[in-house]
């Protein structure tokens, strides 16, 4: 080859080359912000359902939580000396904000959102070193923290639009509590109980000649008419704004599972354990707790099973561990729901299982390729 042609050929400039370890290419679809974006998208059905049932105040709570979460993350990064827009770009703060809002009643005042966002982002995540280092689910840290600090506000539920419109007898069972004081003029001054609250008989006075559970359940079905379970499924019941609609959560959950962003074993083990456990208890002693279907559809079980227990950072990494984690969550949830002091145990159970994750990780390891062959002596 002659010198002349050599000069025309453009060659790479060695000084501009990058040296780094193999592999040199990367899957373009695997980015933290893309994962978070999918989670946000799959949370949207539940958000829409929340706004549909609880009205614009629900939207306001969602927006406030998201905005506060993002702002607190930015502020934290600023104080810590990190780039202010550095970590919000991965959208994890938005996800945390949404999950936090889903765990609040539609009727909470703005400052609950602020405190919740601070608990979630500050105490739940950034204090441990940011995304990836937090051992507990940030949104749940905030929810449990708020529940303990402000029990009254956190257990005051607003009824859905349909409930107010359709059931004139509704007012018999609502306590005209201090809703006015909480959100002056924004909602009707009514509150209602969650289905699990009815079951726990936490708010209804006991009727003569019936067990507390029967009385509670009767009231639940009386409030919601014949379609009690259907209402439970679509979310036309009282509760946190994002947890009531099992249908919407199921849609989002299936989206996440089909994208392989969460392990399907966790929700299955979680919900399955609750179903089996409550079914057994209900069969042995029907007066202790309602039937399994009621338990599965009520409370924050779907939200917890699909979106909180499956949080990558705070759940085990192996499939084996994920199953153990799910079963553990289910058991603790049932324990608290059936015999505990709180009507709902999903948040507590996930938080406790979060703490167990390092131990689960330690014992639920995978057997590397070729190790079984070594033990069995399959070698020739």
């Amino acid at each position, binding site marked *: 080859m002659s010198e002349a042609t050599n000069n025309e050929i453009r060659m790479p400039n060695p000084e501009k080359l990058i040296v780094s*370890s193999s*592999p*040199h290419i*990367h899957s373009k679809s695997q980015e933290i912000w893309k994962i978070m974006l999918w989670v946000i998208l799959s949370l949207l059905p539940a958000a829409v359902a929340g706004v549909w049932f609880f009205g614009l105040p629900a939207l306001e709570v969602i927006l406030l939580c998201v905005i506060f979460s993002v702002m607190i993350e930015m502020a934290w990064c600023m104080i810590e000396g990190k780039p202010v827009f550095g970590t919000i770009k991965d959208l994890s703060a938005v996800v945390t904000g949404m999950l936090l809002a889903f765990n609040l009643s539609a009727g909470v005042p703005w400052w609950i959102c602020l405190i919740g966002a601070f608990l979630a982002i500050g105490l739940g995540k950034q204090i441990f070193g940011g995304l990836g280092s937090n051992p507990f689910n940030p949104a749940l840290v905030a929810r449990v923290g708020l529940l303990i600090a402000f029990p009254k506000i956190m257990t005051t539920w607003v009824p859905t639009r349909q409930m107010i419109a359709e059931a004139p007898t509704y007012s018999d069972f609502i306590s005209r509590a201090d809703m006015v004081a909480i959100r002056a003029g924004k909602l009707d001054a009514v509150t209602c109980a969650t289905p699990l609250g009815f079951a726990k008989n936490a708010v209804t006075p006991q009727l003569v000649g019936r067990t507390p559970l029967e009385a509670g359940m009767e009231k639940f079905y009386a409030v919601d008419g014949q379609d009690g379970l259907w209402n439970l499924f679509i979310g036309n019941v009282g509760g946190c704004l994002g947890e009531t609609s099992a249908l919407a959560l199921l849609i989002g959950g299936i989206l996440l599972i089909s994208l392989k962003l969460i392990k399907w074993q966790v929700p299955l083990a979680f919900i399955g354990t609750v179903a089996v456990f409550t079914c057994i208890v209900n069969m042995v002693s029907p007066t202790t707790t309602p039937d399994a279907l009621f338990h599965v559809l009520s409370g924050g079980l779907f939200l917890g099973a699909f979106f909180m227990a499956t949080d990558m950072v705070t759940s085990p990494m192996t499939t084996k561990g994920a199953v153990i984690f799910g079963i553990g969550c289910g058991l603790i949830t049932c324990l608290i729901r059936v015999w505990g002091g709180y009507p709902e145990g999903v948040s507590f159970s996930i938080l406790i299982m979060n703490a167990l994750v390092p131990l689960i990780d330690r014992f639920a390891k995978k057997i590397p390729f*070729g190790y079984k062959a070594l033990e069995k002596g*399959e070698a020739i």
Partner: protein
Amino acid sequence: MEEVQKKKFTGGIHPKDNKELSSGSAIQNAPLFEKYHVILCQHIGAPPKLVVKTGDTVKKGQMIAEPGGFVSAPVHSPTSGTIGKIFDVPGPSGVNQEAVEIIADGQDEWGSGLDPIPDWQNTAPEVLKERIAKAGIVGMGGAAFPTHVKLSPPPAKKIDTLILNGAECEPYLTADHRLMLERPEAILEGASIMARVLGIKNVYIGIESNKPDAIAGLNAKSEPYKVNVVTLKVRYPQGGEKQLIYAVTGRKVPQGMLPMDAGCVVQNVGTAAAIYDAVTQGRPLVERVTTVTGEPVVNPGNWLVRIGTPIADVIRLAGGVSRTPGKVILGGPMMGFAQKSLEVPVMKNTSGILLLDQVDTVQFTSQPCIRCGKCIDNCPMDLLCGTISCFIENEKFDKAEELHVMDCLECGACAYDCPAHRPLVQHVRRAKAEIRARKAKQNPK
């Protein structure tokens, strides 16, 4: 005879293979260049000893360095000419290595001193094995382990299967693919020679299903050689030794052991063709097929280049680049080595020269692991990659060892899918180096 793979390993990834860039272009012979830099140690094992000195004249194929032991291989001159200086050139691993400069005289005259053995079917296996050793043949797929050593299993190990690796699971690379298309007989006959050396009957050739033309071509010619062509699922790292054995035979190589512990010997298809040349033509390993590819390359393709050609010359053959690449990689994008110099010569195991645009290369970060578990799902060895890398990052090498970090293939399937862009393979390499150093310190032998 065509077969379908028996077992499928768990994990693995399916990156876009981009093989269409160069798979259509036939192997071209590279022209003779003025100078070659032949690195002396081109294999795993004892370094060879130089047998020529500056000023000597050599013929093409003449031995310029003799083996330094049993696990070693000789090195031959890629062309006829005179020996220039003996100096250090940048090696593919980035460390300078001793090399011999050969100034071509333009005659390109053969003089290997090895006679062809056309009647190998009736030649003693020992003679064939010696020929393979003398021809300096090493594994051409990547590891560069001397082939005659692989063909000399200890008598205690019963070998019953020879597997030719034609999976070529690395994206971009097409050298093996073209070789299988253009020289199927050489590969099949080379396989038969190896089968004779090993004294076995079962010979398989595993090819990923994305090369249907190669499968069909080899199938059509395989009958007289009694070689079974196995179609493999397209999955990286299907071409990993242990994964290939598992796919073809259904046997798992026990942890920490070699393929021969599962009764198998695995050889690259390029090695088989080189053995064919060495035995039937009497030609030592002085040239090989290399793919030059990547989006920035003007004319990607496959070239038969002499060992010792600086990669700058090879890139020039492909017309240079149309834009500044971000990386120059020897080997494939998953396991190859990024280069900082274009003076690195082609080695016996250089299967490809890959140039990548900067936007296509991964930008590693030290972001914390978000524990998504992608790496664990992808790992073909079923290791807890993410946890291991966290331990290594905190210099807890003993804990990483407890999690079997030493079994890692470094295939890169973990880091490929890591949403946090963590340099998992680099962590593993560091841990392996540190653990080996610690062990060497504990028992200095």
